[in-house]
Structures are given as structure tokens and as C-alpha cells.
């Protein structure tokens, strides 16, 4: 693929060609590489199919919660406090007498929403700042690079706690934005490294020699390559946001208790420990873990494994 790119770019260097022609040429090259990529992706194994099935099941449970759940998640069944899993309450009840299964179904809605919005926000910020720090001229680039370094010097969770302490209003969107704004650092770093590496490529020099604009460079040259290298990032960001919501709510700085989410259910575990109610602790953790694992399995299938030579040992 690299050889093809080089040849065509060298050809285009030999004779003067318009930007339109160059664009067509590049589009052709990239369509080819993306197609080649797709054929790698389509070999989904059994584990990927299983992961897709489980993830679909969880999403279905959350979306169709009113149809599936047999109890109202906000209703306190005072005669059934801390009941273990059984016929009426499938996964048991918590210390306030709420049905755990309904809590998990309804709670998944805000958890998944926060995960999605947080992931979108962190991917967008990470890509913009990462690419920007590599492409922009000297001082802006250096400033952005320092910004990435400083933000990374404090753990994401500590930033989230700090900002959450500053913002009194807590709803799903605010929390998702807090999480998104505090978790873009590593992606920005990766995007920056990748962009810097690409800037040395000959097709970038060719584009520069035709005086093409920054946006054209990004759209035609950087974006296709970045997508193929960083395509695991959305799933990883989703996992991070989901986990961050759970941790923040668990620590008492996420959503308020009366709102339902997996983290809020997990924050009841302190009280559950006193009653030895294992189901309140185990089931939310398992559903969180399964969601994260399936997302990771799915995104691992997108990455291309590079083959090692055999060992000399």
C-alpha cells in the first residue's frame, strides 16, 4: 500500500495537476485502503458474536425497561427489605425495598447515556487537541502540547472529582460532560504522535507543495489513517466513561441518590455490607463488567494484530 501511495504521489509531482485531480487521486488511494481494511474486520469469531449478542441484550433490557420490568424501580416495598433473589424479585431487593432487577434496567439507561455522551465528548476533544497540537504553527502547538502534558500529570479521576466539587448541579448531561472533559488526554497524545509521524510522509509533502489548506490535509490525508489506527478509541472511551460514572456515583459525587444508574446502585453497597446482602453488590458489578468486556472484545476485533516472527528462545 505504501509503495502505491509513493508512486502515485511521485507521479503527481512530476506533472502539475490541479487540486481537484489530486483530491481524486487521494480519494482513490484511501478508498482502496479502507476497503482492504474492511475485509480484515469482517472475520468475526465466535467470541465477537457472543459479545455482540450480550451487548445487544443489555441495551435491549435498558431500552425496553418499561416492557420487561415487573416492578416500579422507584417504589419502596417496605415488607420486602433486603430480600434475597427469588420468585417475585428476580435479583432481590435493596435495603430500601426496591426491586434490584428494575433498578438495573432503568439505571442502565442513564449509565449507557453517560457512557455514550462522555465517549463522544472525550473523542472529539482528544482528536481536535491532539491533531491541533501537531499541525498548528509553533506557539499554539507548543501550548497545546503543554496543555496535554499538564492535564495528564493529574489522574483523570482526580480532575473529575475536583470539577464535580465545583459544579453543584448534577444531572446526566453535566456529569457526562465532566467525564468527557477529563478523559481526553491519552487519546490526544496518541493522535498527536500519529499526526507527527504522518507529517513526515511524502504525500503530506506533496499536499504542502500544492499549498492545500489545513482542512483538506486533515480530511484527505490524516483522517483515513487516524481512523484505521485509532478505531479502538471510541469503545475505550465509552468504557472509561461508564467506569468513571460508577466510581463517581459510588464515591457520592456523581448522580444524586434519587436518580437511577448502575453507579448509584453500587453506592448502596456500603449499606448492603451491613446486612450481608451480596446480591446488591454482585449483580450491578457483573452487569458493568459484562458491558465493559463486550465493548473491549468488539473493539479488539477492529484492531489489526501485527504478526511476530517466531521466538529465538
Amino acid at each position, binding site marked *: 500500500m505504501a509503495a502505491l501511495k509513493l508512486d502515485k504521489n511521485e507521479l503527481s509531482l512530476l506533472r502539475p495537476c490541479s487540486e481537484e485531480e489530486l483530491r481524486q487521486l487521494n480519494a482513490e488511494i484511501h478508498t482502496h485502503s479502507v476497503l482492504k481494511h474492511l475485509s480484515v474486520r469482517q472475520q468475526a469469531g465466535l467470541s465477537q458474536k457472543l459479545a455482540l449478542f450480550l451487548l445487544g441484550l443489555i441495551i435491549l433490557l435498558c431500552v425496553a425497561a418499561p416492557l420487561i420490568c415487573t416492578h416500579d424501580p422507584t417504589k419502596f416495598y417496605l415488607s420486602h427489605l433486603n430480600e434475597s433473589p427469588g420468585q417475585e424479585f428476580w435479583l432481590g431487593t435493596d435495603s430500601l425495598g426496591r426491586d434490584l432487577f428494575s433498578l438495573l434496567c432503568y439505571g442502565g439507561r442513564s449509565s449507557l447515556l453517560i457512557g455514550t455522551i462522555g465517549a463522544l465528548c472525550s473523542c472529539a476533544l482528544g482528536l481536535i487537541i491532539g491533531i491541533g497540537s501537531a499541525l498548528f504553527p509553533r506557539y499554539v502547538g507548543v501550548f497545546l502540547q503543554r496543555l496535554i502534558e499538564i492535564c495528564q500529570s493529574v*489522574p483523570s479521576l482526580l480532575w473529575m472529582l475536583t470539577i464535580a466539587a465545583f459544579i453543584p448541579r448534577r444531572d446526566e448531561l453535566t456529569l457526562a460532560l465532566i467525564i468527557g472533559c477529563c478523559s481526553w488526554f491519552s487519546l490526544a497524545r496518541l493522535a498527536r504522535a500519529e499526526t507527527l509521524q504522518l507529517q513526515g510522509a511524502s504525500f503530506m509533502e506533496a499536499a504542502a507543495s500544492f499549498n492545500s489548506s489545513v482542512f483538506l490535509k486533515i480530511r484527505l490525508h490524516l483522517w483515513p489513517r487516524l481512523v484505521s489506527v485509532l478505531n479502538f478509541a471510541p469503545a475505550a472511551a465509552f468504557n472509561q466513561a461508564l*467506569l468513571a460514572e460508577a466510581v463517581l456515583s459510588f464515591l457520592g*459525587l456523581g448522580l444524586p441518590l434519587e436518580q437511577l444508574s448502575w453507579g448509584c446502585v453500587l453506592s448502596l453497597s456500603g449499606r448492603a*455490607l451491613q446486612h450481608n446482602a451480596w446480591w446488591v453488590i454482585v449483580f450491578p458489578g457483573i452487569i458493568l463488567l459484562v458491558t465493559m468486556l463486550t465493548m473491549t472484545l468488539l473493539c479488539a476485533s477492529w484492531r489489526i494484530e501485527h504478526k511476530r516472527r517466531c521466538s529465538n*528462545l
Partner: protein
Amino acid sequence: MLTALIRVLGTVFSLCLLSVLIFVLAHAAPGDPLQSFFGNAADSLDAAQRLQALDALGLNRPLYQQYFSWLQQIFQGNWGMSLIYRMPVQHLLPLYLLNTLILGGIAFLLIAVLALILALICARFEGRLTDRLICSLGSASYFLPSFWLGVILILIFAVNLRLLPPGGAYDPGQSASLLNRSIHLLLPLAVLVLSHVWYYGALLRSRLLEELRADYILTAKACGLSSVQILISQALRTMLPFMLQLCAIALPHILGGTFVVEAVFNYPGAGLLIVQSAKGHDYNLLLALVLLSGFVMICSALLAHILSAYFDFRLRARPEASWLH
């Protein structure tokens, strides 16, 4: 030499930027600024006294002047009052930081040793059942959310089996007892090690496997060394700079990982302080901890850079020098 100087200057610049960021955050903190200096005594001041106090503290001077005086205060060790503990932050921190250092330091040593041993075992039995077993178990333990793992361990070992205490650093009145302290450390340490070890184990394993593809391994094998000997005496030596660099990166990472664990186990360390100050809107304490952790991280990144430049023999070795000996 010049690149090292640029690197150090960059670090200093980063620290300055971090301090500006923290200052802006501290300035934007909601609530009465006087309260962060005097605690609740600020409420009993009348208007004239307030104005006088603001003047004396320089709180109505221009922002950049306030920044420099704030920086001076920080350097002099005057970090303001903690609202929830009702004492100066600089007196509060050392005790809690020591507890975190004990927990984080022991966890760091355990993780470093265990990760190396696991990586060596994986490299020795690459692609076989042992390797695959360690890899999958390691990934599973890495994926468990650490706070959830902590609660599960409390549920099993403290609530049901009643073997270990559920939290705290020591029982009341037994702060000097080493045995009591180490019993309390067991569960937090287990969580920290389980949730961090495979991150570094996997990094070391993949690096070790890359290294085993090199030609000098083949030479060593041709000389008749056994696999274990090659691993220990040849491959491990070339890994040394990478390991040192990894350690310098891992130290703040693991120290940062302690604070969720501390909050779960109610362990009186910096992490618990962070969570409590964030919950209680105690901005002086919170921002002091953010500043401190940023400082540690930036400095250890510089340390990692210097260490790897210093210890990478392949970068420093000159071929003509080796012929002279």
C-alpha cells in the same frame, strides 16, 4: 546536554502552567474567600473589618499580583485552612501522606516484582497453556473495577469469613502495632496489586517477547545456555532501561490508584482526604492535593526521561571504546 536543559526548562514551564491553573481554580471557587483563611471566624466580621481583612490579605489587588503572593505563600508552606478539618492544610497533610506512602510504596514494590516474574514465566512458555492462562487471568483482573473488587473482598473476607478487618489503617489505640497495621493493609494491597499488576505485566511481556526475537538470543542459545539462563542473564539485562522508565511512570500511577481503594477501605490517606474534601467543598485542601499530585507526576516524568537516557547503554556505547578494552 542541551536537550536535557530544554527538557528541564519545559518541566519548569509545565509546573508554572499547572500552578496558574490551580490558582485560577482556587480563585473561581464558590464561597467567601475570607473563609478559606479564617475558617468560620470569617462569618462574625462586620463590613469594615471585612474590608480591612481583604486589604491585609491583598485579596482586592490585581489578579497577577495575587498570583505571585499566592505562589510565595505556597513556597513558604502556608497552604490555607481546611474547612472540614478546621486546621491548616500543611499540618494536616503529612500524617495522611505518610499512610498513602506506606500503602502505595508496598503496592509498588509488590507490583514491580510480580509483574516481572509473570512476564518472565510468560516469555519462557510463550504460546503454551501457562502463558495463555496467565494472560487471560491477568486481563480479567485488570478489567475488574477496583472499587467493586474492594467491596467484594470486604464482603468475602471481613463480613462472611471474619478473617480480616473491613477497613481503616489500624484498630483504635494500636497505631504503633506493626502486626495490626499489616493486617489492615492486606485487603487494600490485594486490590491494588490485582488491578495494576497485569497492566505492567503485559507491557513487560510484549517487550520481552520483542527482545527474544533478537539475534543475540540465538547466539546465546548456540553457545549452549539454557532458556532460563538466557532469560535471566541476557534478555533481562537489555530490559533494564525500559524497566526503570516504567517504574518512574508507575510510581505516580499507582499512588494515584490508591485513592479509590482508600475511599473504599476508609484508609486514612491522601485519597480519603481528596474524596472527603471534594464532597465537603473544601477547596483549599482539594487544590493543595491536586497541586501536589501534579508536581509529583511531572517530576517523575522528568526522572523517567533522565533515567532512560542515562541507562540506555546502547545509546551511549561507542564502538571504538569497546575495542580498546
